């Protein structure tokens, strides 16, 4: 994973990661969580940490001009996470169709690099298939190769 990314910190036992996005809107704390939802199945969630309210907001509305770097950082947390849990399946989807489409575009753009580390499945018409360019998916499932 050679893309530019932010350094991040972890509390490993809880499968949480945190990093800071820097841009025109300032420094924004980002939170990434791998939550176990099945035996070897984890849901990947990520959002912006609001320190004043002590809660997470939806990711990507911060307009900090660093979307690709942020997504590359999230991808790198997946690399770290699957280094520890090599059998893990990681599920993720956007909170909206537009967000899911954004993730799909990011995967497509970096597919060659991502495919060296991960096997990616896309959810199409209620069934999973290997990720293919030019197809629209509702959700994604990745596992370490």
């Amino acid at each position, binding site marked *: 994973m050679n893309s530019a990314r932010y*350094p991040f910190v972890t*509390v490993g036992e809880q499968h949480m990661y945190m990093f800071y996005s820097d841009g025109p809107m300032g420094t924004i704390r980002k939170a990434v969580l791998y*939550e176990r939802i*099945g035996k*070897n199945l984890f849901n990947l969630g990520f*959002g912006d940490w609001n320190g004043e309210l002590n*809660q*997470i907001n939806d990711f990507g509305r911060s307009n900090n001009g660093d979307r690709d770097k942020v997504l590359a950082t999230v991808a790198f947390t997946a*690399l770290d996470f699957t280094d520890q849990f090599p059998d893990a399946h990681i599920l993720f989807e956007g909170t909206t169709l537009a967000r899911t489409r954004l993730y799909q575009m990011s995967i497509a753009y970096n597919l060659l690099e991502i495919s060296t580390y991960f096997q990616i499945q896309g959810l199409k018409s209620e069934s999973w298939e290997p990720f293919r360019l030019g197809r629209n998916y509702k*959700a994604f499932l990745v596992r370490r190769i």
Partner: protein
Amino acid sequence: MKTSTRKKHLPGITFDPDMPDFSKDPFFVKKAQRARTLIAKVGLPENQPKKRKK
């Protein structure tokens, strides 16, 4: 799950014991619930019936 063979984190990754615990944040709880519902509905790739070749 191979927790017994758990590796250290990748180089350059800092461990922060003071990081706030956001694992029970309503945003993530809701996302996880949505994911559980999705998997209950569609299953995992290895559990899918194979498509027949015509």
